């Protein structure tokens, strides 16, 4: 039921009403000139630590929204992505990670592409890290232009997936589809936050569903997240359950609210709730459980 959740239903209704008005009137949309005030670029960090993996950090810069992206700021490099997008990479950022034992690990500026995740990074650690529940890590990234981003994060506990299952509908033709259910048990003593992603095929592919869930309504109970009928026979489904902290949950919510507000006149824009200070971005530890099923 995730994919046609209530919020989406309301959005569908609103969109329907709007589309009714827009029907046959393609010219109801036009490009306009919007004079925006000056915007000072900020450092943006994105760093997801995982137990047993070498840390990778992506440091980029925010830019004025309508910037054409053709010119890099002094001290930055313009990364041209295959789809034509440009991303500003500052080349003068020194970054380090403080480990739970108090030692620091320098994150070296060595831009590259992570083959496992398909993601770009700008800085990489010197070796794999060990992250156990309750331990704290700290991030420090500073450029030579006076911008300084810091952040700390605590390793969440591991929450296993109890079971995954699927069921096909009664259709026999090409509209035969299955729903997918992921079930786990929430600990009762704590307020917990989760992110559940379902991927078809490899997890580095685009996710099929992506839900942020808090335990407000099922604290201490078993919980099952059910999709609608959407998967075809012989799809390989990977369910990944992340147990996340409240800061990362808030960051995700604020990113979604901000993105929704750009193009939805009924949505209230949100400022980004960063998990770091002095800039924009997220620094967190990912603790996940994963199950794979082939739908037959």
């Amino acid at each position, binding site marked *: 039921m995730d994919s046609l959740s209530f919020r989406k239903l309301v959005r569908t209704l609103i969109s329907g009403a709007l589309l009714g008005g827009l029907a046959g009137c393609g010219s109801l949309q036009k490009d306009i000139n919007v004079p925006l005030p000056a915007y000072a670029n900020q450092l943006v960090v994105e760093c997801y630590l995982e137990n047993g993996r070498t840390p990778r950090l992506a440091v980029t810069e925010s830019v004025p929204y309508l910037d054409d*992206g053709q010119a890099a700021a002094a001290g930055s490099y313009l990364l041209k*992505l295959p789809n*034509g997008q440009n991303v500003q990479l500052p080349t003068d950022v020194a970054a380090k990670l403080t480990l739970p034992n108090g030692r620091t690990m320098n994150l070296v500026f060595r831009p590259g592409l992570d083959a496992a995740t398909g993601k*770009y990074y700008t800085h990489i650690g010197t070796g794999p890290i060990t992250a156990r529940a309750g331990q704290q890590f700290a991030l420090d990234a500073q450029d030579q232009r006076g911008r300084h981003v810091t952040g700390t994060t605590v390793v969440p506990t591991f929450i296993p997936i109890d079971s995954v299952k699927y069921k096909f509908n009664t259709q026999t033709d090409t509209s035969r589809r299955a729903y997918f259910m992921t079930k786990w048990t929430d600990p009762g003593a704590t307020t917990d936050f989760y992110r559940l992603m379902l991927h078809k095929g490899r997890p580095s592919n685009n996710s099929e569903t992506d839900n942020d869930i808090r335990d*407000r309504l099922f604290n201490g109970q078993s*919980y099952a997240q059910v999709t609608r009928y959407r998967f075809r026979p012989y799809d390989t489904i990977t369910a990944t359950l992340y147990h996340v902290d409240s800061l990362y949950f808030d960051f995700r919510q604020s990113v979604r609210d901000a993105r929704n*507000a750009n193009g939805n006149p*009924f949505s209230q824009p949100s*400022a980004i709730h960063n998990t770091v200070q002095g800039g924009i971005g997220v620094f967190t530890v990912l603790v996940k459980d994963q199950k794979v099923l082939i739908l037959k």
Partner: protein
Amino acid sequence: MSQIALRNSVLISLLVVLLPGVSLGQVRHILSGIVRAADGTALPGATVAVPALGLGTATETDGTYQLDLPAGPQQVVVSFVGYTSQTAEVKLTRNQHYNFTLAASQSELGEVVVQGQQSLKEKLTTTQMGVEHLSIREAKLLPALFGEVDILKTLQLKPGVQSGGEGSSGLFVRGGSSDQNLILLDNVLVYNPNHLFGLFSVFNSDAVQSVDLYKAGFPAQYGGRLSSVVDVKLREGDRQKFTTSGGIGLISSRLTFEGPINKGKGSFLVSGRRTYFDIFTRALNRANEGKEDYSPIPDYYFYDFNAKANYSLGEKDQLFFTGYLGRDIFGFTSPNGFKSNFTWGNTLGVLRWQHVFSPRLTLNTSAAVTTYKYDLNNSIDQFSFTLGSTILDYTQRADLDYVPNERHTIKVGAMLTEHNFGVGRLQRSSQDNSVNFGADVNYTGQEAGLYASDNFKASDKLQLEGGLRFSGFRSGTNTYGGIEPRASARYSLTDKVALKGSYALMYQYVHLVSNSGASLPTDIWYPSRLSVKPERSQQVSTGASFLLGDGKYLLTNEVYYKWARNVIDFKDGAQIFANNDLDSQFLFGRGWAYGNELYLEKKTGKTTGWIGYTLAWTKRNFPPQLGTTGINGGRDFYPNYDRRHNLNVVVLHQLNARINLTASFVFTSGAPTTLPLGRFALQDIYQGGIQAVPIYPDRNSYRLIPYHRLDLGVVYKLRPSRIGGDRDLTFSIYNAYNRRNAYFIYFDQTRDKATDKVTGYAARQVSLFPFIPSVTYNFRF
């Protein structure tokens, strides 16, 4: 207002209330009764006058009047725009009841003669400020979006009233938000006055008699909302004969049936309306059934029913009943087994007993119930998800009208409401019980009001109205209350110039939880509690009215200043959906609104209409609190319904006996909106395409382009059919010059058409409604 000024206003109000006993040393009697049209419909606003004495009054909303006159023979003249005046010789030897029935002045044009509640002369002399009256005939003549006559949208053409956006029937009155309007249907609260996210109001124009909008100087009998009172009265039904009327429009049809009860001892009216989007979408779905790429369009429709009946139990007693039921229904069943049903709407009913103790003393007592609820049910296989919210009120009230002499009109009353808030009801379950959890957050609250007011004619030139309202609210262990003084005054400099002033303090104890610019059915009503204090506003206004052109025109200028505290908004990124801890999501702040409204109107002659211009400012301030930086760091900001300039021009012209031409023009300053200033790239856990995330600066720091629109209409009266009756065709053109008004702006990537690669970013403006013609067929027989 300072405490001293406030105390003085309270004392003045008390004095006014306690000063009715003026002895006149002359034998006088009360002449009272009802003024009706030939079909038995009560006529509010008709003039009942005794020219020889220079005395007169206007009938109330139920057509009743009272005149305190010297004993002896009196010549009474009753008049109303669009009807033939009637003169009666009444010999007053005691308090006497006398009813008048007026015939339409041009029966053929009865349906299209423009009427006003009050003549311009009466508007000049009343103490009430900031009131706009709309007769349903006026609303029916004006052009409307999709031909759907909407009284709330017509009210938006009055000065000081803003809409929530293109096509929306939301009302924002003198800087108040849409939940600060007390919307009453025959004195019963309507919690959600909208269908389809505010595109249409719940009021069926066939069933409505009239609407009064109070923007300031609120009479003491009204309370519970900060910014306005919208008092909608239903028609009572034809007392003489059975009549059927209705209309067939582009998106809905209406049917009304009315007639006498027991040979005119009473009357009834039932009226229904239903849209037919779903009929078209089902046909479309059937036509495309089986196509693999086709996604069925969900069913959507709304309907509403109104019923009203009245019955005379004798000369002194009369019973009234009003009922309303409206629902919006959204249903979806996918071919592969997913079902979703979403319904929402209001239900209300009220039974009122009117007892006339004497022509000087009338008591109305009523018992009412009103509820608004929404229910969402999703199911797939054995799993189900239900969500809902309800507010249910039971209200009892008593209102006593007392006219001790011709200088005083006293109103005293009390009301008590039991609120039941079903704030959130959520359940996820499965048939095998493998999933079963939910939440059910309920509150109760009791709201009470006690009021007294006196309209005191101190002299021919000076008229005062003072009132006091004591209001209170209890929810759990939290009790709130306050004194709400109300005062207005009118001083006539000449018989064509009047100066007016008013003051009103209002409390609001229930609040709408809405974090959206639209009226969503999922908006929740929430009580004042420990951390949610009652909202409070005060408003002073002053103005001058000038009768011009031999009484054909009334020019009014009003200036107002309103300030409010404990106004409610939400934390940045507030989670108000299925949240059982909503208290933690609110922010509390202050608000101000001030402005000047200039209004020129003409109500008689072949060409009627009005021009209104408003210059206004609305501001809000939410300081840092609850671990947040407030809104915009605690700096003042303009809410999205702030408009600096607003010009409305409405013209209705009777071309001949069959054709009426109408036009309305609206110009407003652009609405404040929030646009992103910067963006950053976010990859997320897995590479799924880099997302551009907007970075928003202060709320509402940008303004859309000014809004303007011209609507045109023609009402063409057809010849009577073989079975008789009236018929007309109403043509409307919405947005006649096809203005591309800005509904919202968003930023998007631009792409190379050949390679589909991103080439940059652009701002795009979206408009909602282009030039939209429509036609409606109306009938009555």
